[in-house]
């Protein structure tokens, strides 16, 4: 049984395999009945638009069906049921479980209690491997992954998409450039892990110092919901904004990415620029998740 909990446990060969399969799917090369008769349980304990809907879309496009937890208020969670019990029960109703949960490590726990494959769709500030795969897929559509310069702008402390993507990119010999508000730097343990792989990390105070040398700029939202204290959030919120002027000197192959939702980090005037890939990135969630579902269910 194959769970997908952390990108760190997916080998480079498997990543390449999923991305290759997603490319083929995007070109229409897939069996619309590949998952006929299979049921996916979507358990979202936190709000989600893109991840939830794209998993549903992916399953339906492959001929499978989806059941949902529905609202937390209407479930046994409000009666105090443990996640372990919920997982044990739901794994009897479906052939695979997609889980989003506010606690870090929730998907790992789920994999220990589930009889069916679990895909982590985000656990607190932890891992979000399907997002990482679609991020890699989006970059690969524009350039090879090897040796590129990737900038991360925003919340690198709590931003799980940035953590997972940085970890995955470390296998491809990239240089990581970070630009963060004070207090939102990469966690030291992740920094050490990245350095251990030989990845070069360069810390910048201002985006304009490095923007011309970047191949990719990955912008993240400062996530109010991850801050333990509202005062700490207020002190860093709205600290940066990418505008057409910011992007005046970017390289020819440069792409701008964002896992969405955005708040103020990217000026809507950027949306029509050729480098703006964030809506394409969101769309890529479907072929990539189709490839992931096929991997765990077939």
């Amino acid at each position: 049984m194959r769970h997908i909990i952390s990108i760190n446990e997916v080998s480079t060969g498997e990543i390449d395999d999923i991305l290759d399969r997603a490319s083929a799917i995007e070109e229409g090369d897939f069996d619309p009945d590949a998952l006929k008769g299979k049921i996916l349980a979507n358990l979202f304990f936190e709000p989600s638009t893109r991840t939830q809907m794209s998993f549903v879309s992916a399953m339906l496009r492959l001929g499978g069906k989806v059941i949902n937890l529905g609202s937390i208020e209407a479930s046994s969670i409000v009666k105090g049921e443990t996640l372990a019990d919920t997982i044990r029960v739901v794994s009897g109703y479906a052939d695979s479980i997609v889980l989003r949960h506010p606690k870090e490590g929730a998907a790992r726990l789920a994999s220990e209690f589930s009889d069916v494959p679990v895909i982590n769709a985000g656990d607190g500030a932890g891992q979000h491997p399907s997002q990482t795969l679609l991020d890699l897929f989006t970059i690969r559509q524009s350039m090879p992954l090897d040796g590129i310069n990737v900038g991360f702008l925003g919340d690198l402390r709590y931003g799980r998409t940035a953590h997972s993507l940085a970890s995955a990119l470390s296998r491809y010999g990239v240089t990581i450039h970070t630009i963060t508000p004070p207090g939102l730097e990469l966690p030291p343990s992740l920094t050490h892990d990245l350095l251990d792989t030989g990845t070069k990390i360069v810390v910048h105070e201002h985006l304009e110092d490095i923007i011309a040398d970047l191949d990719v700029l990955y912008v993240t939202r400062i996530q109010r919901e991850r801050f333990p204290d509202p005062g700490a959030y207020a002190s860093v919120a709205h600290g940066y904004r990418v505008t057409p002027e910011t992007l005046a000197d970017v390289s020819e192959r440069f792409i701008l990415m964002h896992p969405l939702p955005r708040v103020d980090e990217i000026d809507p005037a950027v949306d029509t620029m050729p480098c703006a890939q964030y809506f394409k990135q969101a769309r890529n969630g479907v072929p990539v998740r189709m490839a992931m579902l096929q991997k765990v269910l077939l």
Partner: protein
Amino acid sequence: MKRKPEEGLLISPIRNGTVIDHIDGGEGLSVLRILGITGRTTESLSVATNVESRQMGKKDIVKIENRELLKKEVDRISLIAPKASINIIREFQVREKIGVEIPSEVIGVIRCPNPGCISNANEPIQSSFACQKRGYRCRYCDTLITRDIASYII
């Protein structure tokens, strides 16, 4: 003539039980905590702390009467006293010497410092840490404990 107090014998020998020697100075009470021994448990205990040691400078010694430590308990001690040596005593004689080995995984011994970790929620799991080069990494949330491990003992 006034007699000098005897040197070297801070605590008396035990008849049966376990002597844990070469604990880093000041960590003796943490060793007891890791073994689940408190003032309310029934073991007779002797603890010598910050004793002069030629090898270690200062060391602690713990003697527990009528209890022979199991291998898995011994390995827990490695978290805070990796140099400790464990002697099993029967009838005042050292009958067995057990070396401390750092286990690859530590289960149910230390609490994850991340309050957002699922292992700190009301779930039917035990904390689980992998022992790595730089410290102990939570199996659930990847948090790495690099120092002051004694303060995370459950």
